[in-house]
């Protein structure tokens, strides 16, 4: 709670430690007796010599390389010590030397990408013999990008996986899309942490991963095709992300410390008008308005600045507030400290860790911190019985002000303030009120100077979001027979959330009336329990290899919540804010809710391969969900996949080709994530009331939404096929896959006409009626390419290159019968033949450069009686009826990209390592709502971007912006392609430069790596906003970010910060 102290602590603690380390490092090395050491290196199995092996002496800078005969010779500083042998493609080896005795060693080839073990549902497989499409990312790679939530670092690492963070706000939700967008509804994949599916339907839990410390992660597997995901049938329609946490490996207890400290800054800033520009721009817009409507400048109906403003302008104009700077934090700190202890003995292994992550925002007041701890262990009870457990607890807290839309339209709100308003003046006429809009009477005129002083309000409001989460479970394994194992997993996911928001009292002087303080508090708790029992068979009969899984799984969830707010508080101290003064009433009476859900599943999978050559997998899962009416409750999800490793055939000999496998799959997956709880049950709300006799309040219960008993599982049917290849002992790999996924009956909350009368609780003009339906067919198809190459460049630089590219085409094939399209709201639309949720509005055709052109324009019915003028935007008459109306709206862009990619370069040279990670997205548009708000014409009110200065006037007919007129009588600011921009980008996401300190020194038993890293350092994009990498959630509750709806609107959230960090990793 005591932020200042910890803030100071986080600023000096790490650098101090590092400074101390470096001081040791550069102490002059002592001189020792020199010894000539020679030897030879051969490969295990082939006994062939290995060239280019780096041979170093531990604790020194001495190193050399083997020649073509595998021989080496070096001069060691001591008579005896340890040699380290490293070579790409081989396991690292340490060997002692003593005197001049030759050291001959044998290196073991290391597992390459194709030989690695990949985690699939309910088991593991060797990649080379797997038939499924699985992408795996190591925890090591994930940790390179500093992020609160591990999935945020997934982007660009694996083909077919698109990751977009909502914003640069600390702990912001992350949208993960696997192989496109299958539905307009929930399109987030299923997350499974150590076997426990988390964050399922109807559980208002936060993003399940935001509570997981990235340092605890061993690897993340993404199950992309139906065959891989089918054992997760339920909820797997959007793919599955499996997360494995770390286990103890080392024989001796190992303590690992991993920490970094970084600073974050805005990648870009907006340029706003200064006071005189503001005044002149406003005056021009008033003059043009008065001219258009024939008002004499002195008439009461004319628009003009108030006499007060005009009189005081000479003074006021000298005040120039940089509102952007007011809300900006420079060098906002981010830090992570992680400590773990792990070990392994005959009977058990363990991994215990704790971490503290803190991130301040680049915008004022949005501090996030998380404490987390984990205990993972395995116990071999007998030779046949094993027990294991994994538990993690995390406690997150965000302290923030009042950021509209939860995470900060604070920047655009601040920029919108007139530049001569002041932030801190408490009694002056201009900024005398913290809220701006009421007490500020002199401005509340036709000029529309009615603004909330959002930065001040943001400081005033104290909102805290606290989230305590416990996630874990235990597994018991019993070997019934050799190769046959019974496995029982019980786990739980529990979280308790308490969010509070406190607004202090405000006075008459401040906002024009006295208003009491109020404190709002919301508490929720969620519990999800899972029990799964599986029988696993792993058996080889000669060259026949069988791997089979069969089992049952049950998951139950329960959630409760309550909210209330109080006013007239007894004291405003944080701890007592719930207590109103005697006699003071509740501002909002308590409201509570509760819910339950359950899943029941039967699953089975058989994998068979003959001689590791012909590979087959079949799986089946049957799921029941409480989300549907009893008659529609069950879904069955089969899948098949097959592969053929041609390189295992004796007749298949291609020089250099070391591995070649073709594979393919077909399968069905389900999704039961209904858009609202119990859509099949007619639920009655009791919120409305009515006062009989003018005073007695009586409840007036009413129906709550459309009841749909006919909802069924959303089903996705997918095929994919491709090949995996390896060349030169798999140093070079190249994989390609084609996929097609048809999602039908997708579950969607469709907007329905207000004539239904079922728009309960909608406050946006009474609309917002919607209904949960199965809605049609969406097709995603595309290609994935992935390639890796490892080589040693001249000079002994080991280089590993990895790249991946995914192409995607998303198309809505059909909606419900008789429905071709529907409006998704806010300038978006979903229609047959188009990608989901594309931009829908008016297309522009430049400006009407002169009066003659404007006079010839089609009649614009959307602006009522007003007439199009010279300098107005030209809107295209799409249907050619010579009238501009709602029927002329059309496709303006899309929110699902054509392709996305990532590219990594990792290189090692001696003790240095450098890595670069690029990612990018192509063929995507964003709606720049910030520019629409701050860059549209018509002045005298909020401040504008300097880009407005280039607008149409008779003298500047070729301007890029339309004419400047108050009130926008021609609707130039309407939603059109004028505000939709290409938002493809190519970004240097991460750059790291590391140095490995030698082991053995300064009490460091093992290697210690120190590094500097930069994130989001460089971006190439045509997008004019601060950052093209964001997604918008229609749901500001931030609980989940799973919807594709309205995902491309730039509301001016916090952009991805540019970050520099300095880190250290060591073990003891």
């Amino acid at each position, binding site marked *: 709670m005591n932020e200042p102290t910890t803030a100071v602590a986080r600023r000096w603690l790490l650098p101090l430690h590092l400074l101390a380390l470096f001081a040791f490092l550069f102490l002059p090395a002592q001189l020792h007796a020199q010894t000539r050491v020679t030897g030879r290196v051969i490969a295990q199995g082939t006994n062939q010599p290995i060239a280019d092996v780096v041979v170093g002496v531990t604790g020194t800078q001495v190193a050399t390389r083997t020649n073509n005969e595998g021989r080496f010779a070096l001069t060691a500083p001591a008579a005896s010590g340890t040699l380290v042998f490293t070579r790409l493609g081989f396991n690292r080896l340490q060997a002692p030397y003593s005197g001049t005795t030759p050291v001959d060693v044998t290196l073991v080839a290391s597992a390459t990408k194709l030989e690695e073990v990949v985690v699939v549902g309910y088991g593991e497989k060797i990649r080379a013999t797997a038939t499924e499409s699985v992408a795996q990312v190591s925890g090591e790679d994930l940790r390179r990008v500093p992020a609160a939530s591990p999935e945020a670092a997934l982007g660009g690492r694996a083909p077919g996986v698109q990751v977009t963070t909502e914003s640069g706000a600390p702990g912001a939700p992350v949208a993960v899309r696997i192989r496109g967008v299958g539905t307009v509804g929930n399109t987030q994949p299923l997350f499974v942490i150590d076997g426990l599916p988390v964050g399922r339907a109807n559980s208002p839990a936060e993003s399940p991963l935001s509570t997981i410390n990235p340092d605890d992660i061993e690897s993340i597997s993404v199950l992309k095709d139906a065959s891989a995901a089918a054992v997760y049938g339920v909820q797997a329609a959007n793919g599955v992300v499996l997360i494995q946490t770390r286990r103890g490996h080392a024989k001796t207890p190992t303590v690992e410390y991993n920490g970094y400290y970084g600073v974050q800054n805005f990648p870009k800033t907006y340029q706003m008008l200064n006071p005189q520009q503001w005044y002149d721009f406003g005056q021009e817009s008033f003059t043009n308005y008065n001219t258009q*409507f024939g*008002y004499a400048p002195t008439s*009461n*109906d004319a628009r003009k600045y108030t006499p007060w403003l005009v009189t005081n302008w000479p003074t006021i104009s000298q005040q120039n507030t940089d509102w952007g700077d007011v809300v900006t934090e420079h060098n906002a700190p981010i830090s992570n400290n992680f400590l773990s202890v792990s070990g392994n003995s005959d009977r058990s292994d363990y991994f215990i860790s704790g971490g503290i992550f803190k991130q301040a925002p680049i915008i004022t007041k949005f501090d996030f911190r998380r404490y987390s701890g984990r205990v993972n262990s395995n116990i071999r009870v007998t030779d*046949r*019985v094993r*027990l294991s457990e994994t538990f993690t607890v995390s406690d997150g807290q965000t302290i923030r002000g009042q950021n509209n839309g939860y995470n900060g339209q604070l920047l655009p709100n601040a920029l919108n303030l007139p530049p001569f308003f002041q932030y801190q003046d408490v009694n002056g006429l201009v900024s005398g009120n913290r809220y701006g*809009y*009421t007490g500020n009477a002199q401005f509340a*005129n*036709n000029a529309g100077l009615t603004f909330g002083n959002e930065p001040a309000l943001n400081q005033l409001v104290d909102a805290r979001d606290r989230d305590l989460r416990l996630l874990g479970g*235990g597994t*018991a394994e019993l070997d019934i027979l050799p190769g046959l194992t019974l496995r029982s997993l019980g786990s739980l996911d529990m979280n308790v959330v308490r969010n509070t928001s406190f607004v202090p009292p405000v006075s008459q002087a401040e*906002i024009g*009336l006295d208003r009491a303080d109020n404190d709002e508090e919301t508490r929720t708790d969620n519990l999800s329990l899972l029990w799964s029992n599986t*029988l696993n068979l792993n058996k080889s009969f000669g060259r026949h290899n069988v791997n089979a899984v069969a089992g*049952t799984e*049950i998951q139950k969830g329960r959630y409760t919540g309550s909210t209330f*707010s109080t006013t007239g508080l007894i004291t405003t101290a944080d701890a007592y804010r719930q207590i109103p003064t005697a006699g003071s009433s*509740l501002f909002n009476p308590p*409201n509570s809710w509760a819910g*339950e*859900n*359950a*899943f029941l599943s039967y699953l089975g999978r058989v994998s068979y391969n003959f001689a590791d050559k012909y590979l087959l997998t079949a799986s089946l899962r049957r799921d*029941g*969900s*409480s989300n549907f009416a*009893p008659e529609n409750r069950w879904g069955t999800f089969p899948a098949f996949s097959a592969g053929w490793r041609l390189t295992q055939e004796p007749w298949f000999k291609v020089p250099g080709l070391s591995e070649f496998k073709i594979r393919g799959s077909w399968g069905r997956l389900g999704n039961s994530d209904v858009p609202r709880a119990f859509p099949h*049950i007619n*639920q*009655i*709300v009791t*919120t409305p*009331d*009515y*006062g*009989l*006799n*003018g005073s007695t*309040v009586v409840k*007036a*219960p009413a*129906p709550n939404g*459309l009841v749909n008993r006919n909802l069924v599982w959303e089903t996705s049917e997918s095929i994919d096929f491709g090949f995996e290849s390896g060349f030169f002992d798999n140093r070079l790999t190249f994989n390609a896959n084609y996929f097609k996924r048809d999602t039908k009956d997708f579950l969607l909350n469709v907007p*329905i*006409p*207000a004539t239904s*009368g*079922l728009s309960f609780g909608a406050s946006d003009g*009474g609309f917002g009626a919607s209904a949960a*339906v199965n809605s049609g067919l969406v097709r995603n198809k595309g290609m994935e390419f992935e390639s890796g190459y490892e080589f040693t460049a001249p000079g002994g630089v080991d280089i590993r290159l990895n790249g991946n590219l995914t192409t995607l085409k998303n198309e809505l094939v059909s909606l*419900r019968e008789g429905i071709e399209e529907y*409006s998704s709201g806010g300038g978006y639309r979903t229609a047959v033949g188009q990608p989901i949720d594309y931009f829908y509005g008016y297309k522009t055709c430049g400006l009407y450069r002169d009066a003659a052109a404007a006079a010839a324009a089609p009649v614009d*019915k*959307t602006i009522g*009686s007003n007439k199009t003028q010279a300098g107005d935007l030209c809107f295209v008459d799409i249907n050619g009826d010579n009238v501009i109306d*709602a029927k002329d709206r059309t496709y303006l862009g899309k929110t699902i990209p054509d392709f996305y990619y990532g590219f990594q370069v990792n290189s090692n040279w001696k003790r240095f390592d450098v890595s670069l990670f690029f990612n990018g997205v192509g063929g995507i548009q964003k709606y720049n709502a910030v520019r629409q708000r701050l860059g549209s014409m018509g002045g005298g009110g909020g401040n504008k971007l300097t880009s407005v200065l280039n607008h149409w006037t008779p003298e500047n007919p070729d301007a890029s912006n339309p004419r400047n007129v108050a*009130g926008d*009588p021609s609707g130039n600011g309407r939603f059109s392609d004028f505000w939709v921009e290409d938002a493809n980008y190519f970004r240097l996401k991460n750059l790291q430069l590391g140095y490995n300190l030698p082991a053995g020194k300064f009490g460091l038993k093992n290697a210690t790596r120190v590094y500097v890293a930069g994130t989001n350092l460089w971006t190439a994009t045509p997008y004019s906003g601060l950052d093209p990498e964001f997604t918008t959630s229609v749901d500001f509750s931030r609980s989940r970010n799973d919807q594709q709806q309205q995902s491309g609107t730039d509301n001016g959230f916090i952009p991805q910060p540019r970050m520099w960090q300095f880190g250290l990793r060591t073990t003891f």
Partner: protein
Amino acid sequence: MKFIAKNIAKKLATTGGVPLLLVLSLTMCSEDVLDKQPLGTLTDETFYKTDKDFDAATLAPYSTMLNLTYEQFGSGLWNGFLKPDDDVQHRDPNDAMDVFNWTPGNNNFGWVWANAYKGIARANTVLDQLPKATALADAKKPRYEAEAKFMRAWWYFLLATNWGEVPILTTVPGSVEETMVGNSKPGEVWDLIESDLKFASTNLPANYGSEKGRANKWTAQALLGKVQVYRAQWFKTPAKYADAITNLQAVVNSGAYKLTANYGDNFDEKKENNEESLFEVQDTEGDNINSWGTTDTGGRAGHAWTIYVSPSCYYGSGGTCAPKSWGEGYGQIDITPSLVKEFEPSDPRRYYTMYSQGEVYDPTGSTVKFDSTWSRTGHTPAKYNRPWDPNRFPNNWSQNNLRLIRYADVLLLLAEAKLLGNNDVAGAAALVNQVRARARTTPVPAEAKITGTLADVPATGSPAAWHKQYLQHERRVELATEWDYRYEDLVRWHRAGLINIKTDVQFGYPESNTNWKETYLLKPIPQSEIDLNANLKQNPGY
């Protein structure tokens, strides 16, 4: 958990009873676990059973009326319905509603449209559920059915007079397809309204005792008469006047209502549900003091009329600010000069309709006088807002019931029906003079500067001329700024050929008259509704 698992595992390992665990897990996984019910909410399995349930459920369509009047910036009713008329004008010129720059994208109309259908769905819910309520005695059902039908008719009447041939839903939609209803046929919605109101007037009780606020037999019959007067004029079918006379006369003959002695009582919070009131919105504090939303969204159950119309500041030359401007008065609308002129100098009703220069404004403390420079036109609305009370809490909320059907309205409608249906000038004059007599004897303070005595209207003349000169005048001054009735009066008279809106009406801003065209006899259907429902056609001209 570890302990248990360990024990089980050990036992299994020693006994070899592997199947035990499997069997156990399968029995635990009985499919009953999937039978979940929503918690903490009523469902139709637990509600719509008893008369108590229906007593509550029938209030839902009434409660929806509160949504129309909650918005402090006037969305919905005030902006959509009141501003277009010639009683008031917006404080800012070129306001789209005020100067007839109406477009389908305008959400003020959408707000009314959406809430009307919400009210209808809630009435239909009662009608759908009544036959299923087997535990409820059949004898009790007609009253609930009648009450639901009254409210359904009330909402459809609002829709029909504003949008014309609107979609008709008589049950709650059970699928998305069922929500996509097209425009109704001409007259169809009026037939439904009349038949619902006939059922209601036959089956509703004459009163509810202490449960004031529910529509009774006379409310239904009065509304039926009103609908028939409208219908006679909208469709130029004078035969409907006879039906209207029958129904309105029945209300008069019942003796259940009379004019209050003081005209001002009709807008006084302490005189709600009085002897003149047939129907009013029951505004209350609600069970919630959060004033920033409707009761539907968990907010209050009152209205924001007073903060909306209380003066704030006028920025024209010499303009000044009212006390607590912007805090407790937004001054969104002013009284038009033409309404000021409409009042005879001797008419006390002017005082209760508007604030004028020198009248006591803030009776607390130092007795602030109303200053005409607070308002663009010199006058702001006073109904429901006199006396102005700066200390009411919360400041932006009012519990003063908005009156929907007053006995004076019944008398004037009956007069109009007799005048135009039977050419009965004398009969009409007698009724109008009843209303004028009450106005005449209503007391006013001297500061109001009412001079002379309000005279009776003559009992002779040609019906059309008499209508124009006396009846139209009387309706305007008696009902000024109440609900949406003024613009609806103008529309029906225009349709009946009794006036020409474009030339006979002075709206306030000159653009209003310039821009007005017959298209604006109906409101535009919200564009979002057209977008969502291919069967729905926009009203002509938009």
